[in-house]
């Protein structure tokens, strides 16, 4: 009896599946180069430039977090300001206990992640638009509770008690902190999406009922993302707090404007892509830098732009470009080469 060799052709006949490949290497090398160049900036340019870039950094971080929520897990939160505000206010507490603000940012993110876990059970009772408003209400509740503590400055905000005394050093440190938070947010998103969780997430976003029936643990995946995004927003909140040496008013740091901002950046840049929020944040940063002094009109234009882009360019700036050219700095899609 002759043993036939397995028809190897049938096995190898499966077309190879690629994910990024050389593009990944290029993208990551490029990103690393940009981050290194940015890290060197305090030695190269005056502190006014880096001070502005701090804002860009936390905008990118915030946009990435909202994109993770809405673009990958289908959760349109209007209440991320809860975690931004908590990040800032918890930083007061750890700072009061002698932890420096830079290490404190890490501590604060971890604490907020812990807090977000029970909160998610509350928020997940709602879906879609009701989820959006539910998270907003939660943020309001957090604000209303925080302002009841006199030690936190009650309704009038407060300043950080212990920051680096030397202004030049402080600015550099603040900038590096912001840069680190941004890098963590963007690269963290990339890592999450390349993981097994990322695949489940995209299934959830496309059809959570179907994903659930195929054995994807929908709620667990969403919860992980919700908690991650809370931690990211808290870190951004801490950066905002360090950058302005405190919080001007709880109404501001817990303001729904932050959520509005995040929505805007993600929509403009392109929801559901890693690069989109970065592009959106840069677009908003430039708009804000050059047009913010035109006051109210500028906000009207921002609102109108959000409408126009969601109606006529639903993939956003980056998404449209990537769709037409197939280009990605952070490839997460699997491509079958035939």
């Amino acid at each position, binding site marked *: 009896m002759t043993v036939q060799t397995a028809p190897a052709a049938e096995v190898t006949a499966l077309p190879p599946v690629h994910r990024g490949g050389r593009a990944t290497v290029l993208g990551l090398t490029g990103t690393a180069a940009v981050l290194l160049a940015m890290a060197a900036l305090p030695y190269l340019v005056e502190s006014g430039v880096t001070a502005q870039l701090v804002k860009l950094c936390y905008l990118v971080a915030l946009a990435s977090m909202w994109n993770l929520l809405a673009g990958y897990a289908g959760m*349109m939160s209007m209440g991320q300001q809860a975690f931004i505000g908590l990040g800032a206010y918890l930083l007061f507490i750890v700072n009061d206990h002698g932890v420096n603000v830079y290490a404190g940012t890490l501590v604060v993110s971890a604490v907020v992640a812990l807090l977000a876990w029970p909160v998610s059970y*509350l928020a997940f009772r*709602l879906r*879609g638009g009701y989820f959006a*408003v539910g998270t907003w209400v939660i943020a309001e509740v957090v604000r*209303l509770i925080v302002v009841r503590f006199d030690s936190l400055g009650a309704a009038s905000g407060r300043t950080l008690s212990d920051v680096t005394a030397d202004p030049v050093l402080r600015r550099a440190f603040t900038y590096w902190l912001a840069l680190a938070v941004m890098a963590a947010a963007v690269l963290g998103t990339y890592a999450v999406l390349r993981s097994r969780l990322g695949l489940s997430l995209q299934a959830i976003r496309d059809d959570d009922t179907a994903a659930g029936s195929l054995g994807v643990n929908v709620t667990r995946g969403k919860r992980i993302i919700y908690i991650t995004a809370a931690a990211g927003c808290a870190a951004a909140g801490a950066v905002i707090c360090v950058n302005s040496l405190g919080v001007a008013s709880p109404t501001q740091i817990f303001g729904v404007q932050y959520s509005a901002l995040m929505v805007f950046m993600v929509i403009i840049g392109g929801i559901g892509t890693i690069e989109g929020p970065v592009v959106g944040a840069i677009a908003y940063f430039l708009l804000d830098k050059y047009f913010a002094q035109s006051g109210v009109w500028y906000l009207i234009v921002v*609102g*109108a732009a959000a409408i126009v882009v969601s*109606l006529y360019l639903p993939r956003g700036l980056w998404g449209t470009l990537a769709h037409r050219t197939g280009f990605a700095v952070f490839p997460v899609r699997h491509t079958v080469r035939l």
Partner: protein
Amino acid sequence: MTWLNAILQGVLLGGIFAMAAAGLSLVFGVMRIANLAHGDLMILGGYVASVTAAHYGVPVPVTIVVSMVAVGALGYLVQRSMLDRAMGIGELAPMLVTFGISVIIPNVLVQVFSSDAQPLPIGSLGTASIDLGGGLAIGWFPLITVAAAVAVLSSLHLFLYRTQPGRIVRATSDDRAVVRLMGVDNRRVYALTSVIAFATVALAGVLYTMRQGGVTPFEGQLTVLFAFETVIIGGLGSLWGTLAGGVVLGVAQSVGAQISPDLPLLAGHVVFLLVLVFRPQGLFGRSVLA
């Protein structure tokens, strides 16, 4: 007696919330759109009334009609020009459009009318009340708002359950593709729904403005929360639940204010979250036997 009075005032406040929530609930029920601009539309309704009264000398009761017509017409335009298209794109797009509108409305109001409160005086009606004895009094105006809320919700109910257009609206809510096989243009149903919802929320906005004595541009950020909370507390898809939800929220806020002047908002939100934890389908949400 002050407590009883607080509860009574809360019930009366609930009428306005219920009216505002009815439109929100309708739009969500028929088009599955969570209208984030709902609170701002309410405030816009107040502005229309205030401005027509102050600048054009229109009698205050007539301003209610003007506001409902103007905001209702805006509803038609918004639905036709933006939301129809957005609904074809996906679930997120309509919400983003309403989000954009919610940014535009208050900023346009600031630009045109400044941040100052726009008054809408209702004269002696604002203070007139029926004395129930023992320090308990019901203001005429709050009473009117509750009557108006009951009237609006009843009319909506009659429309939806007793008329052919109403039945078609409900059928469209159930299955938008199948009504087309019966010759119904689902987009016209959406337009009708939006007009009704926008006009109702304008009415709620005018009454709210009258109650507060005036209106400021950014109040929509609060009222949108109240409207959503009312819908959820009452239970989705139940108009009478909406009335109950409004009353519960109104009483919570009013009793909260009685405890401490800085508590009404927190008390309202906490009641909402409690309902969410212990009765997520809402007080009168559809049970299995709908």
